[in-house]
């Protein structure tokens, strides 16, 4: 094994041990979308023009994507927590691979997110969501969700290292909770006023949500939408690739040089 792979595996183990020690945050982030599905799906769903079951089927992919995009918040929180702890100093005096800390951290995050999405999918299936496309489409949708998680986690890790304190990162991270509200994750964008619709459709969350709906056979992409939503699979890949290209190197550099 190369040193990066070996060191990252060690850091992955560390991250899993930490989660095991303090599982509260993980449990919260996993149960939150389920309560939102039930709350939005039954309370809002009964007041919307769309029939309740149809709305809940619309909502599930949106919540899956919102959960994936939560990597931004989790990444920020973990990076800020680490960078203000003495243990980072020790890690930076060890002859280890520079990228191992963020790589290990995001690997652990992908693992827990993948597992954590299962209950949401099961509840979703129970309240009316269907995968009409077959296993290949479902697998593709899952792959895109993981890719978005990875991309937002790396963006979060970088931003978290920029913040001055854990509290600041926590506050900024909570604000990212708003991001799915300005997308097609929870409501269709076609009836939004023009400028708001443009913003919402250029939100990366919209592209991935449309792609998941497309790949699961829930809804075909809206042809009259902005490019990333009209071509959601290409749009999702482009968005996630861009985020990773920008924030990946920045985060690695920042981890290696933090405090210098």
């Amino acid at each position, binding site marked *: 094994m190369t*040193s990066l792979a*070996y*060191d990252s595996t*060690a850091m992955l*183990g*560390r991250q899993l*041990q*930490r989660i095991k*020690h*303090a599982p509260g945050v993980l449990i919260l982030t996993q149960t939150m979308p389920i309560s939102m599905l039930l709350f939005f799906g039954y309370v809002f769903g009964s007041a919307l023009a769309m029939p309740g079951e149809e709305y809940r089927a619309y909502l599930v992919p949106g919540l899956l994507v919102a959960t994936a995009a939560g990597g931004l918040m989790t990444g920020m929180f973990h990076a800020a927590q680490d960078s203000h*702890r*003495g*243990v*980072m*100093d*020790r*890690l*930076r*005096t*060890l*002859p*280890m691979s520079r990228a*191992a800390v963020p790589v290990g951290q995001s690997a652990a995050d992908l693992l827990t997110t993948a597992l954590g999405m299962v209950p949401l999918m099961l509840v979703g299936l129970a309240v009316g969501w269907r995968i009409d496309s077959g296993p290949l489409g479902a697998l593709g949708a899952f792959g895109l969700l993981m890719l978005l998680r990875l991309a937002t986690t790396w963006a979060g890790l970088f931003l978290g290292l920029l913040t001055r304190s854990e509290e600041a990162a926590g506050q900024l991270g909570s604000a990212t909770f708003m991001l799915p509200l300005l997308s097609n994750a929870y409501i269709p964008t076609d009836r939004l006023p023009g400028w708001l619709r443009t913003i919402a459709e250029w939100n990366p969350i919209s592209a991935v949500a449309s792609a998941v709906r497309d790949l699961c056979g829930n809804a075909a992409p809206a042809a009259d939408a902005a490019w990333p939503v009209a071509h959601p699979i290409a749009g999702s890949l482009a968005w996630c690739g861009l985020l990773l290209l920008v924030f990946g190197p920045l985060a690695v550099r920042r981890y290696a040089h933090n*405090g*210098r």
Partner: protein
Amino acid sequence: MVSRMTTTYAVLSEGLVKRFGAVHALRGLDLAVAEGTVCGLLGPNGAGKTTAVRLLTTLLAPDAGSARVAGHDVVREQDAVRRAIGVTGQSASVDVELTGRQNLRLFAKLHGMRGAAGRERAAELLERFDLADAADRAAGTYSGGMRRRLDLAASLLTRPRVLFLDEPTTGLDPASRNRIWSAVHELTAEGTTVLLTTQYLEEADRLADHVVLVDQGRAAVTGTPAELKARIGSYAQVVVADEDDLPQAASVLDQLTGARPQLDTATRTVGAVSMDPTLTLPRLVRELDGAAVPILDVSLRPPTLDEVFLRLTTAADSRKELVT
């Protein structure tokens, strides 16, 4: 005796400069620590000790100057430096959410010690530092002394050639302090070079072969603890009969020593560190007598490091006299 030419230095720095915005943390620090010795960086809060340690352990990059640790340049050969050193920082640098054992095994892995080697070394160190009973508890539940010991154990996983300890006993109870001290003694017996920082003169006196007094980012004075005391002369102390005589006695001491005397009204004592090696007891008595100070007791004794330290860091002019 080893000649200066053949001495190899485990730590060698020249003109290290580090600024944080407007703050000059280091203003040209020169250090030379011979292999196998213990060097004590002694200085008050804010003197630049931690900054020096962070530069030497590759955690910070210097603005100017250069340093070699175990023969490797701290800027250009970071990985080689990191392979040769162990570091215990001023604040705890273990993961509070992991157990003591998990911490040590993680750091062992990252040092490249795989499988059983890391597991055995971790167990051995936990035993050595009296942490075996607490090994499987989260480090966050440890007392200050236990966490320090875990930190020290983490720095010793690979038997480093050079060990850096930044204020290793600050805030510890005497028992924990003694434990750390004996660990340092054992390490030096095994040939490890140690660079430690401290605010405690007793600690430098007990552990260090060489002391570097750091003042405002520079090495103000270097020497063995004994040399430092010898170079500064003696400590003159006068006990007067009446409290009202204290100012007069103080002014005599002031003139003789050039240092600001310290007054203690409760014991009617005044004392000052003299920089003058020719100051004798008869002369001191004559001067006091000449000024008609009614004295009960006069003494001249070697100064403690505390007194040396106070003299060097409070009187700006004393530095010029000492650095020759």
